[in-house]
């Protein structure tokens, strides 16, 4: 018998195993088909058949039930115990800030340039986008900011659904994704995010009406339509009427509270994401972000560019978002000033075009709020003027 089989021989073995184990052919049939390989093939096929005959005892039903009770008890103990309490206290603010930086880099607002941020279901990068979201959700849950992230993700899912609908590719699964994200946004919403979520739900509910539906998606469509209709309990809290598949709120919400209660923050630092996007005009851009807390209130744009023979360039954008004035969240359409950059292929320079006032979507504001709220605890509203 050969010590090592060649790749074709390995394929022969596997092909024979498939047919013999599924009783489509006998060992003799296979050996007749591959006479040159019969010597080494026969004992291996025989051994495989013997292995297939191994009895597969099931775990006794009572043992399954007993173990299930034990496992569930362990699960509940594990979930109710304070998790990573010490480390989260220590990294609380850092993690929260980093989380938001990641969120922005990923797809949170107009500054988003990450390659996967604009990917849609079915795109190459979409898996990356969803995996990244899982990281964000995990971090957000650790630091008790899942409400903001789910609000954002509800918006993202809704946007994706609209894109697919515009292409005529809307599938029931996508509607279910929207439903799931909105459901979580409602479950996790607190008094800060509820007004924003309500604005989003009403806006999305209206936009949903113009999406054509067919019989294939009708039930899913109706489910999304229903959940986008806000319902409140007597205390003003958003409630779910359909509690099917309702997600649980994880028992880690107090962690962030203990972190923000630390009396060490005496300044009002703002998050300073430093972006270095690399863009190929006409395709997309990607970026990496570093975030640090710097006690400054002056947003600066420092674009630089380098032209190359291939007309690509590497701008550097330093962007310091201002803490917005404290105030009360209102349902009026919020406005924010966003510094945008333009570029020209013939003159590859980035030029700050100054302030541009335009209404932003509630979730974009939520992302902005997250940045500033982490650093200062203030809640931004309405608008801010450029320096």
């Amino acid at each position, binding site marked *: *018998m050969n010590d090592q*089989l060649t*790749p074709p021989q*390995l*394929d022969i*073995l*596997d092909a024979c*195993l*498939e047919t013999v*184990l599924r009783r489509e052919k006998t060992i003799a049939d296979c050996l007749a088909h591959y006479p040159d390989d019969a010597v*080494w093939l026969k*004992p*291996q096929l*025989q*051994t*495989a*058949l*013997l*292995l*297939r*005959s*191994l*009895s*597969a*005892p*099931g*775990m006794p039903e009572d*043992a*399954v039930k007993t*173990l*299930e009770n*034990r*496992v*569930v008890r*362990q*699960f*509940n103990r*594990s*979930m109710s115990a304070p*998790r990573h309490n010490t480390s989260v206290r220590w990294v609380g603010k850092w993690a929260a800030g980093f989380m938001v930086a990641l969120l922005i880099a990923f797809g949170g607002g107009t500054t988003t340039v990450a390659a996967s941020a604009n990917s849609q279901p079915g795109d190459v990068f979409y898996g990356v986008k969803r*995996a990244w979201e*899982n990281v964000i959700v*995990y971090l957000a*849950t650790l630091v008790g900011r899942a409400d903001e992230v789910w609000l954002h993700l509800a918006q993202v899912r809704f946007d994706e659904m609209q894109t697919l609908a515009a292409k005529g590719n809307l599938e029931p*699964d996508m509607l279910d994704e929207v439903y*799931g994200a909105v459901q979580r946004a409602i479950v996790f919403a607190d008094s800060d995010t509820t007004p924003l979520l309500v604005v989003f739900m009403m806006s999305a509910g209206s936009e949903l009406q113009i999406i054509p539906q067919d019989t294939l998606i009708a039930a899913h469509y109706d489910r999304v339509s229903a959940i986008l209709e806000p319902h409140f309990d007597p205390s003003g809290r958003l409630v779910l009427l359909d509690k099917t*598949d309702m*997600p*649980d*709120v*994880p*028992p880690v919400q107090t962690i962030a509270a203990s972190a923000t209660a630390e009396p060490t923050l005496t300044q009002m630092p703002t998050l300073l994401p430093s972006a270095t996007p690399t863009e190929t005009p006409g395709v997309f851009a990607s970026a990496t972000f570093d975030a640090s807390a710097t006690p400054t209130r002056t947003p600066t744009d420092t674009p630089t560019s380098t032209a190359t023979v291939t007309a690509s360039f590497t701008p550097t954008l330093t962007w310091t978002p201002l803490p917005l004035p404290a105030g009360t969240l209102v349902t009026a359409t919020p406005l924010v000033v966003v510094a945008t950059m333009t570029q020209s292929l013939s003159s590859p320079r980035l030029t700050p075009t100054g302030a541009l006032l335009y209404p932003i979507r509630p979730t974009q504001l939520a992302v902005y709020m997250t940045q500033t709220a982490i650093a200062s605890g203030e809640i931004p509203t309405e608008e801010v003027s450029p320096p």
Partner: protein
Amino acid sequence: MNRTEEQRLVAQAQRGNSEAFAVLYRENVQAIYRYVYHRVSDRHLAEDITGDVFTKAIEGLGRYQDTGNPFLAWLYRIAHDRVIDYYRKVNRQPTESDIEEQSIPIESDMDSGLVQEQISSVLQTAIADLTPEQQQVVMLRFVEGYRIEKVAGIMGKNANAIKALQHRALRALANRLERAGVDIESMMAGLT
């Protein structure tokens, strides 16, 4: 259970939903038990190790990331590690003499149940002498009946690597049985 349903349950379990985890447990416990049982050949020990597997799964659930493979693949890896740990603790693997001691002639008039029992006993002892990876392939490919691609996904290897492992495992088992004086032909006849 389809993948979407499984992913939903995993996500719920990660957020602390015990019922979701219980469903995942019920869905996978028998496969894990069979896998462990064939590696340790003892029902009670297999039950204990199966319990350990789910305890470890609870501990690691927060770090679990869906990589496109079934949740069971992750549980198999934990089970594999637990079995290795077990053998490391007891510091013993079956030896060739174990097979020889168990090997009794299979007669043509033997009761089929007895033949089956004898074959199982001999094979399990021989399997235990394979490398851990070969054992895993044997269990998943021939006992659980998964195709090469699924075994590859579970073990985190490519299909060609699994084919090579499969061949080495079968060759080693066949040699092992032959050296121990086990008559494969009569065993095969006992199966029919």
